[in-house]
């Protein structure tokens, strides 16, 4: 990657951002008097803030860079991650699952599992989540440090130190509220940093039609149909018809249903933001409000990647102009966004763009750390290590867990630097664990006969099924064990990693779903109807929204989001 030169003004912008971020932490310090205030924001945050934080915490730089890379590599079909993946899951979460998360007064996702099922189910979820989320935080740090190293020449250690100090600073001082406020700040910063990029890049290219024309040539060069890079649905007829290597069924089931519902509906990182809302209706509206900007984020992060690919094609034809560099046999897709920033932004907005990137890395880290410290304090420490202590003790523990979380993140970042495959490994584990978890929650919330034993063993079996499926299949021509086929025999070859991923998730979900039902029917239900009130659909009174104006009601918001998303799918099909 070529370096980017920063001018004084760019550094000034960065410093201003850091000052505000820490300033917010300091300003909130006075309110952090209880563990509930520190770890759960005292459930006092308005819906528009939790809504923006909800999507922003997920908009880490891995996603920003990654979506740009995917836009270049796969084209418009990448939008499915948003329009088929995230949005339906967010609607489902807001309408159907938040009443149980929020109404049960559970302080975390694992705590809901304890209330609904039993301790061992909670322990499984709490421990796997705690480990994964802190590693995810470390990987955020690593990715940022690596990017800053190649882009700006900052030493790895400097980036790690700066991000650790700042994130620890504001999360230690202001807890979850500080993380949430900064996530909202980061959201606006990303829009501020990327909107001009899309405008300038599109203008340079000559418009949407011109981009389509160039991408048609790219598709033809790669032996796909003309619109493979610019249509999202039309070329999903089979794995050989599109660069992603998936068919529409695998995509809808794997990504649309299992993977994204598994993430958005059960991952405490995002659910925590909705749980911090100031009322039941605010909690339900959180993912729905977040869905509105989420729908349009593809135009901020995926489109630049597509433009980069189009420009590269243009450069190949004319011999000059912006082009993606090569990395081995393929293009260096990850370089798309950073290089575009350097290409079009003069000093000034360049600092803004880079600060937006930095901000998203940091808030990804902070989100993971605040989710970790809550799960550690309430689900592991208070439940198993030191129960029955005073709230001030748990507040102290929450703070210590924050420090501990950042320290372990740093270790994980260095580990990731040593073992390049760590990132792939973590993605894998996430998929193994998240997909079956969604089946567990679905049954838990909508079928009162689901028992603790059913849930626990179903989860275990589902996760093992995911591992087994991965161990028995190989994508493309891969030989590295991290890609699959480590169980000796290879039962099936998938045309791409993504296809393998989708089907692993589908298998895992199905295994967990079926086994949870079977084992539940074979074991006794230890919870009475009274125990399960507020935790299961059949035993919970419908949330009352009569007092809200019609445009604020979750159902209405959901319908509008749904219609708009379908429209986007149709327009770009």
């Amino acid at each position, binding site marked *: 990657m070529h370096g980017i030169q920063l001018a004084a003004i760019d550094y000034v912008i960065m410093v201003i951002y850091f000052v505000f971020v820490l300033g917010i932490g300091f300003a909130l310090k006075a309110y952090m008097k209880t563990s509930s205030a520190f770890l759960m924001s005292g459930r006092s945050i308005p819906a528009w803030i939790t809504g923006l934080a909800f999507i922003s915490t997920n908009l880490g730089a891995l996603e920003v860079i990654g979506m740009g890379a995917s836009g270049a590599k796969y084209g418009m079909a990448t939008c499915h991650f948003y329009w088929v993946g995230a949005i339906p899951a967010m609607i489902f979460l807001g309408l159907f699952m938040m009443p149980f998360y929020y109404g049960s007064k559970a302080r975390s996702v694992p705590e809901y599992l304890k209330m609904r099922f039993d301790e061992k189910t909670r322990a499984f979820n709490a421990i796997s989540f705690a480990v994964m989320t802190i590693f995810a935080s470390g990987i955020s740090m690593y990715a940022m440090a690596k990017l800053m190293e190649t882009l700006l020449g900052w030493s790895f250690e400097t980036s790690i130190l700066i991000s650790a100090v700042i994130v620890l600073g504001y999360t230690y001082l202001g807890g979850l*509220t500080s993380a949430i406020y900064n996530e909202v700040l980061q959201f606006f910063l990303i829009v501020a940093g990327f909107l001009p990029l899309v405008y300038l890049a599109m203008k*340079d290219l000559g418009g949407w039609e011109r981009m389509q024309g160039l991408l048609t040539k790219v598709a033809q060069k790669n032996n796909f149909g003309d619109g493979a890079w610019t249509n999202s649905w039309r070329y999903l007829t089979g794995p050989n018809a599109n660069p992603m290597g998936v068919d529409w069924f695998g995509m809808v089931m794997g990504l649309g249903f299992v993977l994204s519902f598994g993430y958005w509906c059960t991952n405490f990182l995002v659910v925590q933001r909705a749980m911090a809302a100031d009322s039941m209706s605010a909690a339900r509206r959180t993912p729905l409000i977040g869905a509105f900007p989420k729908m349009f984020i593809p135009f901020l992060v995926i489109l630049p990647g597509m433009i980069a690919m189009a420009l590269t094609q243009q450069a190949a034809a004319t011999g000059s102009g912006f082009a993606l560099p090569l990395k081995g046999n393929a293009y260096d897709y990850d370089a798309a966004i950073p290089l575009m920033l350097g290409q079009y932004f003069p000093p000034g907005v360049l600092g803004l763009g880079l600060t937006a990137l930095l901000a998203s890395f940091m808030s990804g880290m902070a989100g993971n750390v605040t989710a970790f410290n809550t799960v550690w304090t309430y689900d592991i420490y208070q439940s198993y290590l030191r129960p029955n202590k005073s709230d001030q003790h748990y507040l102290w523990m929450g703070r210590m867990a924050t420090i501990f979380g950042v320290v372990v993140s740093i270790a994980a970042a260095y580990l990731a630097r040593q073992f390049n495959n760590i990132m792939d490994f973590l993605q894998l584990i996430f998929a193994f664990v998240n997909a079956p978890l969604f089946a567990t929650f679905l049954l838990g919330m909508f079928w009162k006969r689901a028992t603790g034993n059913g849930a626990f063993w179903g989860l275990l079996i589902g996760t093992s099924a995911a591992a087994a499926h991965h161990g028995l299949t190989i994508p493309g021509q891969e030989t590295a064990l991290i890609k699959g086929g480590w169980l000796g025999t290879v039962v099936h070859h998938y045309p791409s990693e993504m296809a393998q991923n989708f089907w692993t998730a589908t298998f895992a979900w199905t295994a967990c779903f079926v086994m949870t039902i079977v084992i539940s029917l074979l074991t006794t239900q230890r919870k009475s109807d009274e125990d399960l009130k507020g935790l299961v659909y059949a035993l919970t009174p419908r949330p009352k929204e009569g007092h809200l104006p019609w445009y604020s009601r979750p159902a209405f918001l959901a319908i509008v989001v749904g219609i708009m998303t379908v429209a986007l799918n149709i327009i770009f099909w």
Partner: protein
Amino acid sequence: MGLDIRIPIGAMFAILGALLMVYGFLSDPSLYQRSLGMNVNLWWGIVLLAFGLIMLWLAKMASGRNKTAARQ
């Protein structure tokens, strides 16, 4: 929770916007060859400043409403 988030957001964007605007005014036009001749700093700076001021104004409106409510 005590601090109205619109205040720091508004303040930061107002400051950044003003900074970019001034820099845009004072900088050498040759800098903007990259951005297709457009003085992005100036134009985007104006937009960000406006956004920041709107946020601050919204915060002020909200606190005014709260004070009235509290008095009643």
